[in-house]
């Protein structure tokens, strides 16, 4: 459902005389803010970019080396320090990390979304939960993992908890939003029949909510996979990210980096195909 930002008041032409022009778009402070922000950012970029270039940098040789490395990565992938099986294992580790954090996150987030859903609980409860979640979201995912590594030490534990934490905050928000976009009639009808909240949620809310639930959870899985790779490198959580880190920053082996990048790419494509089919099936049921 689209809600207009403001109440539309259509001015009458007669009010301002013959040269009155009726606008097609209303003046919107938000758009002005966006343009201003972009303008400032563009200016800052232009001013700072030249000063960032170190004096000894030779743009020509730098670009050439860059292209060479790219060429090694993508046209001469090969393994020397690790075996293919090891890499596949590492990839599986990252996938499992993403899967686990998404699963735990989606369960907790669903409960929190219900508890902050305005048709079921007083508005202030929802507001409190949503504000807290916004606070969590404001700190990036990888940072949460690092924060938890301080508590639990570097490794998989910190990664699982850190990624779950952020997933919960993200999913609670999108779940609640999707629930609130659903037709309120279904729930009111059940209430008029004298049902309690439990059956109302299960019978009226869940069936209508499943498509958005699947779609958002899948998107979060994709995000968590990308983060699991990053976290593997940054927080020593293992997985394909750690291998990538070793190959690129420890062995300087761009052939191996190439293999790893291809692996991740293949998995990303598979994920995309899977999500496409999943969505088609769910939509097909509608």
């Amino acid at each position: 459902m689209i809600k207009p930002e403001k109440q539309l008041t259509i001015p009458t032409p007669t009010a301002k005389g013959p040269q009155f022009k009726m606008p097609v778009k209303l003046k919107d402070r938000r758009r002005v803010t966006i343009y201003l922000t972009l303008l400032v950012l563009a200016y800052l970029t232009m001013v700072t970019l030249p000063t960032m270039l170190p004096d000894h940098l030779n743009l020509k040789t730098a670009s050439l080396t860059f292209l060479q490395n790219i060429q090694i990565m993508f046209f001469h992938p090969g393994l020397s320090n690790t075996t293919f099986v090891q890499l596949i294992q590492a990839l599986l580790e990252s996938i499992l990390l993403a899967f686990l954090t998404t699963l735990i996150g989606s369960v907790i987030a669903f409960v929190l979304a219900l508890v902050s859903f305005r048709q079921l609980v007083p508005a202030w409860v929802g507001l409190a939960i949503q504000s807290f979640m916004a606070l969590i979201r404001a700190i990036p995912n990888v940072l949460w993992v690092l924060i938890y590594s301080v508590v639990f030490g570097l490794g998989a534990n910190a990664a699982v908890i850190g990624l779950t934490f952020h997933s919960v905050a993200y999913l609670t928000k999108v779940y609640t939003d999707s629930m609130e976009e659903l037709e309120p009639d279904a729930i009111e009808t059940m209430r008029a029949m004298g049902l309690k909240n439990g059956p109302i949620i299960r019978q009226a809310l869940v069936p209508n909510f499943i498509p958005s639930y699947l779609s958002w959870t899948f998107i979060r899985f994709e995000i968590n996979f990308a983060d699991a790779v990053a976290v593997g490198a940054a927080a020593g959580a293992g997985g394909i990210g750690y291998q990538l880190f070793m190959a690129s920053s420890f062995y300087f082996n761009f052939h191996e980096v190439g293999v790893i990048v291809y692996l991740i790419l293949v998995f990303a494509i598979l994920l995309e195909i899977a999500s496409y089919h999943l969505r088609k099936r769910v939509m097909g049921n509608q």
Partner: protein
Amino acid sequence: MLEVKHLMKSYDGHKRSLTDVSFTVATGEVAAIIGPSGAGKTTILRSINQLIKDDEGQVLLNELDMRQLNRSQLRQARQNIGMIFQNYNLIEPLTAIENVLHGCLGNKSTLAGIFSLYRQSEKEEALQLLQKVGLGNFAYQQCRHLSGGQKQRVGIARALMQHPKLILCDEPIASLDPKSSTLVMETLRQLAIEEHISVLINLHQVDISRQYADHIIGINGGQVVFDDHAEALTDTAAAQIYRKDLVLNEEAAV
């Protein structure tokens, strides 16, 4: 059976949407509420099952005042009131029979409601009700694939599954073609006669009200302006109900 006494309601605290509405509906009677748009018909209906709170007056269903009940008593009382909506309000992704079965969840345990545990007898009853409204072959169809008229009949079957004493209908045929409208109205009429259910219907069509209702209540500007047998509703009386100046008076008072 249903007695509404001195019902008043104001949404914003200043403007009265209902001013002192009183009427009764007898057991097994079909009563129609007619009146211009904004007269307060929906407000009356929703006050009866207390979907609208903060009203004043009395709504007595078999001597029980709906307005004086606590939460669990209200849930109990609502199980006796079926409701049928202009937009059907079915759970569209579910099948017709699942929607009908929702009607019996009111007097089942929370657990049964959450895990959709229905007795064999309940499932059979749901199927019989669907057959009764002519949808036996559509029991396992997802409701989103049904036509408007079919959806409304699923809605009726769902209300019947509650074993209601009273059925409230808010413009049940406003979105339907004439043929489906006739079917829906005839089904409602038949229920009142056979099952002794009282039916209270908000309608926009005077002729359909005359044809199917025993009793007609005319509302204008939040007031009862007509309350009599259907035969007493002459064309002049109908025109009087839809008189503009009452509506205008109400707006002028804002």
